[in-house]
């Protein structure tokens, strides 16, 4: 059964969940896709009270802090030992991090 069946208009769809999984670099099989679609839809339904509030004119708060201009002097600090850094890496060649071929250019 597809989780999109019988869901009200505007509810999260299976296709949206698949798209989000792609953006997040996660692979979901068919069963997971159904399960996640259902579970996320329930959570988003619960958030509908928030989504429905009329908050025009209320500024967003990203942060509880009211700090500004937290700056550091432009002075070098010791970094990490290269061998220690590379020892924790999955694959290394020539003192660099090795990755499989890259198919697309950076945006």
């Amino acid at each position, binding site marked *: 059964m597809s989780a999109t069946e019988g869901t009200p208009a505007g509810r999260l769809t299976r296709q949206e969940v698949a798209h989000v999984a792609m953006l997040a670099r996660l692979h979901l099989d068919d069963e997971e896709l159904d399960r996640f679609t259902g579970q996320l839809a329930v959570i988003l339904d619960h958030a509908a009270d928030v989504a429905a509030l009329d908050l025009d004119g209320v500024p967003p708060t990203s942060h509880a802090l009211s700090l500004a201009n937290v700056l550091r002097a432009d002075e070098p600090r010791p*970094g990490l030992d290269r061998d220690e850094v590379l020892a924790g890496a999955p694959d290394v060649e020539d003192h660099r991090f090795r990755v499989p071929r890259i198919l697309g250019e950076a945006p």
Partner: protein
Amino acid sequence: MSGVPGHDGWELVVGLEVHCELKTATKLFCGCPNSFGDEPNTNVCPVCLGLPGSLPVLNQRAVELAMAIGTALHCDIRPSTFHRKNYFYPDMPKDYQISQYDEPINADGWLELPDGARVGIVRAHLEEDTGKTTHAGASGRIHGADYSLVDYNRSGVPLVEIVSAPDLRSPAQARSYAAELRAILVATGASDGKMEEGSMRVDANVSVRRAGSSELGTRCEIKNLNSLRSLAHAVEHEAQRQVEVLESGGVVRQETRHWDEDRGATVTLRSKEEAEDYRYFLEPDLVPVVPDDGWRSAVAEALPPMPAARRRKLGALFGDEPVEPGGARSDQVATVVDLGLDELVEAAVAEGVPAALALARTANEAATDADAARRLPLVSYVALLRMEATGELTATQVKTVLADLLRDGGGDPAELARERGFEALSSEAVAAMVADAIAAHPDEWGRYRSGEDKLTGFFTGAVMKASRGQADGKAVAAELARRRAEP
């Protein structure tokens, strides 16, 4: 000249995005050295490797260099915030870039081109650079590589991204904008402007439209413009490509294209049909930067004069003779300003050296080793140029002595000239040699006296030969003219 070269009736619209690496001692958010060309992965720490638990702390110097750039580009310097731009890429350790989004530190400025045109600056914001990827395998390019290797030394190096308005109308103007921007970046001390080392990187947004239209056409973004030359070529080729597409009834697709220097053409990198979804949101690990008036004016007061002002100042040395834009003298002025050799010219002129001579020697000879020239004691340089102005040394001799001065980092030009055996010929000696030459070539002398001016060279050559190059050409010419004027 505006328009699309070779295609009448079309207008070219170009905006440039320039990424400039700032010349700080350390990276934007950590204390690792900001240094080019070191052994891979030696300038790294938890922050610039994006290790779990690490947090960014903003570099004050980077903020001030960004403000300096904003000031030089006549921008509003505003309270600003940082956002996360989310996308996965192996050269980006956190898989998001910390960048300024809807509240950039600098906005709404302008830059004046040497021809007087003003180009709008939309914004100039701070962001972090990525690591560097080397592609291993047959081609050495990303396409066809078997695998890639990543070095994070560059990761987190501070960048200012400067976005121009789409105000540029020709390949030459695009080039001129990039050259002028580079000169400004160097002058502020924010950047070394080295395009070949990637410390200044230019992307061009190019579109075309029918002449007279006010709507913007679909634009393509061109990447990989590694020099001013390739910028101009790429813009020209891309404009022609778009016009050809449109004239044959096609449509230009919005996409990112790559300038292929070898083929002399732009090629598709990526179609923008599927828009990127960067999921920007305010970076919770950083707080806003809110410059007050005191901070803004301290940055402004510390700024040296910008290239346009310096060019005007050099131009003023010529008095009533204006420096024509695009002419040879204007190029010399630009070179002197670019290389920061203004002081040499100004000091020489102040000591009575003719402006044209001071400019020529500085732009042509001193410029060959600008680093040494900037370190040269002004007294040495001025003394040497005076010896040329008074005819004590010939132009050739001055060039030789100047090379010695640059090599030695200074010295007494008179002494160097003596060591070289450049004995200054007295005016009596010159007069005697001219007299000898006249006596040896009576026919030529007769023709010269009756108005054949081109024989000046013949006599000058003869005197030069006799003096083994030590006579000053101008002094010889003056003596010849004096003799001709004698009854």
